[in-house]
């Protein structure tokens, strides 16, 4: 699975979304599951999947799927 698919999979599995969901449009509090608790589950999924530790400021800044991509790029993930 390439990194883009892994990222997409993290969002779909964490928030229990349909496989064909438009992940690019996802943003914080835009769907039921993406609240404060869901966000920390997403962070844990990303850290496990990509074997990284996300800085606190990035945790607080990651308010969309596209922002998640940018943060992963900072960790040298080719995405």
């Amino acid at each position, binding site marked *: 699975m390439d990194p883009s698919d892994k990222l997409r999979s993290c969002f779909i599995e964490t928030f229990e979304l349909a496989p064909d969901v438009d992940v690019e449009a996802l943003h*914080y*509090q835009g769907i039921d599951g*993406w*609240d*404060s*608790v869901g*966000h*920390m589950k997403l*962070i*844990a999924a990303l850290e496990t999947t990509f074997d990284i530790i996300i800085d*606190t400021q990035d*945790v*607080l*800044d*990651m*308010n969309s799927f596209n922002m998640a991509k940018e943060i992963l790029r900072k960790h040298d993930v080719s995405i």
Partner: protein
Amino acid sequence: MLILVRVSVFRPEYDDLSAASPEWGKIALLPWDEEIFGFPVADFQLGPNPPQIQDLPSFINALEDFSARTNAQLVSTHVQGDDTSAIARLVKAGFSPVEFSLVASLSKLQSATLPATRVALRKALPEDHSSLSAIAGTAFHFGRYHTDPQFPRELANARYVHWIGNALSGSNPDDYVFVLGQPGAVIGFMNVVVSDGRADFRLAAIDPVRGTSSPGAGFLLYAESIRAALELGARSAITKIASANTQVLNIYSMLGFRFSKPEVVLHWHAQTSLNLLA
């Protein structure tokens, strides 16, 4: 022997609502709230034999007499969430349910499911006071005054501004205000009282603007508040939470809290009130 008695002018003094039927319950004006609102409000505590259906005309008269005598514009009361009979009678007497709440507790705080530390909370500094007051005045949607559609929102907000000001005053050494974010960029706060090994999480808020753009801030605030309480020696924790506040319920659930004591809060409004909304 000299006995010193500390008398607080803000301590409610309960008295029988009805001299003829003292078993109905006791009522008191709430001086702390009156000072903030600028008009009297009261609290009624149901007695061992609360008014039954046949008592309701007399009960309503007693409430109206109390209101006329004291100028109380609002009377609050609370009953167990499963006591639907009492709730129905209170509604017939003119009360309206305004809030449903639960007690969340954790008997062994050290067993809380805490994530790894990402950000440490800090104790509030004098330079935080204006930020904290601004958050307290804008962030809340729950609490019985906020959820009473007849109660002016600005007065409900003022009560929490007063609350946080009181917590920051240092008058109670067990009262702590923990802050998430740096001075000038405060994201949220938690007011907790730690006493006899128990942490009572009383008031928490996330800045409505910064909170929306800071995902996870709510969870971090609650999780790190528990860690801070542990460091202060707390062994158990308790809080009261509106059952409609599902985001925070989910946070407490994830941290290992259990829920109990469902309660309904009801408000009775003076019909001629000029201070309440129509």
